[in-house]
């Protein structure tokens, strides 16, 4: 359901400069942020009640808002962090999404290193189509479902009590990060089941031999191909075969293809001549 542009209470809307994507290009405009809706001025001239929003994604300094029951209206908005932060908060707390009050700790571990000052924050979790959002007074964290690398319903010692938590491993800015969610068990189970279902595609069902597992571990740790070859005493060809296995199982993706070359007769001639000229 679309609302008429100008239907919202103008006096209650704070108008801020932004850019929106219109007909394939970014155009400057103003975005009005109200209590129950936001407005995008010309050229879009649209008002979007937060409750009609079905998805919210974030990419660098822009957000992508999908609204409407059929999810066909998509708005790409770019602005300064402060503006986007206010808009995101309104959307997340009112959008058409599964929402729960919870405590969360994100990130708790980054790249295998415990974050020393990580603490539990009270806030709202909104489960959207393509990701889950954590919002507290100070933080807005989005975990895109495609970046979720593992979910576990486990227990954690909190204030000297063992409490159930959902542990989420996910990718964030090229790091592997662990976040925790704490809420009543019934809600936790719903969240866990949803995430399990939504990330079903990334579950590993194949049998992985020890050597391939070791290579995967070294790639995870950030080792390059030559370090892996040296560490595991593998030839370039052996490692390529293992990479192929990882690619086939969709456990890895090609970052770039490195070329191995050997000199042609012309190349050899160049080297011979350059050495000769150095000796002269």
């Amino acid at each position, binding site marked *: 359901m679309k609302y008429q542009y100008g239907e919202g209470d103008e006096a209650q809307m704070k108008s801020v400069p932004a850019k929106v994507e219109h007909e394939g290009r970014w155009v400057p405009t103003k975005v009005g942020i109200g209590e129950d809706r936001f407005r995008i001025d010309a050229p879009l001239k649209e008002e979007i009640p937060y409750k009609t929003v079905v998805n919210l994604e974030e990419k660098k300094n822009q957000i992508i808002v999908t609204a409407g029951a059929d999810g066909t209206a998509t708005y790409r908005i770019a602005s300064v962090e402060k503006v986007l932060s206010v808009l995101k908060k309104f959307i997340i707390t009112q959008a058409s999404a599964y929402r729960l009050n919870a405590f969360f700790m994100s990130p708790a*571990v980054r790249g295998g*290193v*415990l974050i020393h000052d990580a603490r539990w924050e009270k806030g709202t979790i909104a489960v959207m189509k393509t990701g889950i959002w954590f919002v507290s007074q100070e933080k807005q964290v989005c975990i895109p479902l495609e970046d979720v690398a593992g979910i576990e319903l486990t227990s954690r010692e909190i204030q000297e009590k063992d409490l159930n938590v959902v542990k989420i491993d996910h990718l964030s800015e090229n790091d592997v990060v662990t976040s925790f969610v704490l809420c009543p068990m019934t809600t936790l189970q719903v969240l866990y089941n949803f995430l399990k279902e939504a990330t079903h595609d990334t579950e590993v069902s194949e049998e992985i031999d020890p050597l391939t597992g070791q290579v995967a571990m070294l790639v*995870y740790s950030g080792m390059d191909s030559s370090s892996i070859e040296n560490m595991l005493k593998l030839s370039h060809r052996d490692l390529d075969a293992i990479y192929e296995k990882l690619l086939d199982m969709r456990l890895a993706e090609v970052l770039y293809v490195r070329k191995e070359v050997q000199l042609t007769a012309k190349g050899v001639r160049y080297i011979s001549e350059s050495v000769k000229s150095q000796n002269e």
Partner: protein
Amino acid sequence: MGRILIVDDTMFMRTLLKNILFSGGHDIVGEAADGVEALARYQELKPDLVTMDIVMPKVNGIEALKAIKAADPSAKIIMCTAVGQEQMVKLAVKSGAKGYIVKPFQAPKVLEEVKNVLSA
């Protein structure tokens, strides 16, 4: 850059850590595969920092940590363990660990933690 002793019962993890730390410009002065060897190597080599696995045969990492701290209260030790054993953190910190890394880990983050502990 520091002189580091790596303690882990699996050669694979020792080699991985060695590579990571070496790439960060650190000097790997020794390795140990259990807690008993860790204490002996520590006293012999006097490293600037120890990375210590928790689950090891003979004497585990927590006991080795306590023994090293008893021998040298200024010892800098980073504990290292698998996912799911985060409960050990409290015990390790209480026993004097300066840092904690969880396997699997990523090289840049490990180097960052090592740098933090060495400069503390």
